[in-house]
């Protein structure tokens, strides 16, 4: 059998048929992800379980386009899964990755994406230990989709979640917002101008580890992906049955993101991020939490943006530049399909 032509070749139906062609493709994945658990090529990876609680999360990635300023679907899949695990106060250990490939998809693009995944996982210190490949006919998928599951070890005795949040708690945001969404829009050539915006796509478990080490009484963490910070705050206000007030001037928005949003009539608070988190902590611990965050490269612009209130229940309000308040609405969310 001819070796795969990674330069000019394309995905064919038989690459997903379980035969020798598929074995060639799988071999390349095993080589890239480079770890003994995957290299064993059993039906499942087995490993010793750590003591205590574990975290598990799964995510599907259908982003369009597959490559965008600041990342690609492979990097996004690793970061997205790692971040969901990290938000539970866990140290991510292992990932799985399932690939749904469209017949005709360029092998060179696949190679780039797989290498990017391998690189991101290595940097993050997580191993991709299980995988699957399926090929569907042309036009039945858009290039490729990735489904990833992650498992991690909970490393904090804190119980995190909406139920832990109390009135008076501090609301903290890890950095400037809206970069992923605007980077994707510019990559889709919808903007009509070249935005100098790169996706903030990044693994946040290092930042989370620093936050946990600070000793602050954390109550809740969530990465602000689809629907942006507005969605996270509204979800939390609803789940906790509490209100929330944030301050507009405390929220960092870069100039290109602000300009693109103004042009397109979008609200930065509703635009997606892939490397930003919202944390809630006890009010007295906000200073040390912020100090810890700001000493980490992914939390340099961390800021206290507001506080939790008793009510109105489920409502997020924002104090504006001139002192008045408005509601931060729950994003309707169909303006930007397939951003992750």
């Amino acid at each position, binding site marked *: 059998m001819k070796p795969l032509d990674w330069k000019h070749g394309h995905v064919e139906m038989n690459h997903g048929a379980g035969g020798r062609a598929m074995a060639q493709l799988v071999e390349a994945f095993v080589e890239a992800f480079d770890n003994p658990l995957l290299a064993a090529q059993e039906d499942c990876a087995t490993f010793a379980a750590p003591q205590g609680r574990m975290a598990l999360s799964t995510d599907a990635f259908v982003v369009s386009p597959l490559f965008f300023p600041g990342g690609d679907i492979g990097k996004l899949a690793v970061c997205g899964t790692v971040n969901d695990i990290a938000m539970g106060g866990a140290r991510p250990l292992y990932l799985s990755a399932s690939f749904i490939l469209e017949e005709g998809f360029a092998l060179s693009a696949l190679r780039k994406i797989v290498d990017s995944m391998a690189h991101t996982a290595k940097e993050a210190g997580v191993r991709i230990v299980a995988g699957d490949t399926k090929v569907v006919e042309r036009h039945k998928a858009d290039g490729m989709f990735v489904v990833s599951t992650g498992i991690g070890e909970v490393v904090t005795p804190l119980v995190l979640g909406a139920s832990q949040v109390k009135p008076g708690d501090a609301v903290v945001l890890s950095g400037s917002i809206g970069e992923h969404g605007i980077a994707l829009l510019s990559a889709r050539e919808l903007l009509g101008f070249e935005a100098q915006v790169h996706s903030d796509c990044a693994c946040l478990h290092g930042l989370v580890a620093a936050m946990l080490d600070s000793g602050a009484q954390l109550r809740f963490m969530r990465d602000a992906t689809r629907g942006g910070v507005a969605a996270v705050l509204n979800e939390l206000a609803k789940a906790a049955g509490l209100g929330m007030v944030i301050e507009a001037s405390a929220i960092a928005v870069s100039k290109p993101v602000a300009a693109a949003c103004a042009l397109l009539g979008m609200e930065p608070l509703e635009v997606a991020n892939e490397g930003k988190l919202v944390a809630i902590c006890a009010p007295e611990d*906000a200073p040390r939490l912020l100090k810890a965050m700001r000493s980490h490269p992914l939390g340099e612009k961390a800021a206290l943006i507001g506080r939790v209130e008793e009510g109105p229940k489920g409502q997020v309000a924002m104090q504006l530049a001139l002192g008045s308040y408005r509601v931060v609405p729950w994003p309707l969310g169909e303006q930007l399909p397939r951003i992750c």
Partner: protein
Amino acid sequence: MTQGKGEALGIAEGAKRAEGEAGNSPSLSYMEAFANPTLGRRLLSAIAREAATQRDYYLMEFCGGHTHALCKHGLLPLLPPNLHMVHGPGCPVCVLPAGRIQQALALLEAREVVLCSFGDMLRVPGSRGHSLLSARAQGADVRMVLGPTQALKLAQALPQREVVFFAVGFETTTPPTALALRQAKHMGLKNFSVLCNHVLTPPAMRGIWEAFRGAEGARLDAMVAPGHVTTVIGYKAFEEIAEAFGVPTCVAGFEPLDLLNAIYALVCQLNRGQARLENGFARAATREGNLHAQQLMREVFEVCAGFEWRGLGHLPHSALRIAPPYAAWDAQAKWQLPCPPIADHPACCCAKVLLGQKTPPQCPLFAKACTPASPLGACMVSPEGACSAYYGYAQGLPLAAPGEAATAATFSSLKGERGEVE
């Protein structure tokens, strides 16, 4: 050129100065300069001083973009209680009669066309709650585009398909449609057409003044004219209206200072018994407007005898249709589409809201049966619609009393905490 009152107050210079001061911090933009809170507070006190009289002031912001900005920037609660903003009909999605949506739905049912339109257009309910979005869910090929050029590109990419651009909007979105039509003709692109629903601002503004003149109990004193439309058509047209109806009118941009400046200028005019046009958007709008865009519109479109506006009813010479040389790209002419009259939901107050006779919360459907996620009336659909703006930004917040708002919690303590860490 007539100077806006704000310029007399030094707003423009102040904004420029703020921009200059930002020399050290490259993050401040022109946009931010017109949102400067210090100047905003100065304007608010100027408005409060000027409006401290025994009378009430009823000002309409014609444009939905202004309504959105007033709500988004939280300006309404900061105005004096005797100053009322009446939210006008300048939202193209809101004023489009349901029959026009039905026309597009009928086209999708009869032919296998690809129908393209702006995002908020897709959610507008036609008859029995059907929308372009629900048609898409049932298999119709409906696509969201950011403009007609994208639809044109789609037609080039899909030569086997008929691509129809569902065009809506005032004079701001008309030149791009005209350009797409001219390009289609130039390229001889036969599978592209436009379902034209472009409407005109000045006839609608005249319609408003006539309606208020005739309506018992309704009151309107002055008009904030739309800045973006003015950049295209020039403020000459609004000058004529200000003169014909004897009403103070001020063109405004869309940043907080633009709006406060216009409000201040109009209150000053009313107090002095003046009724003239002021240009408060001098950084972008001129008396003549964009002559190139006007020429393009004249070439591709002609003025219709009349158009049925949701809320305003039939207004003569208030819309555009595609001119005969471009008939081959006119979806209406191509398929002879009927436009059935469709009544709004019986309890829906959109018509009254569009005329400023009711505020959104006064509608019995508001925030109950009618929400942005499942709108019954058009004003709830577009973010520029008054109902949607109130729902999104002001739901549950007492609009009139910001100081006592339930959410006006102790931010000072929070700031203290921030002070410690910075």
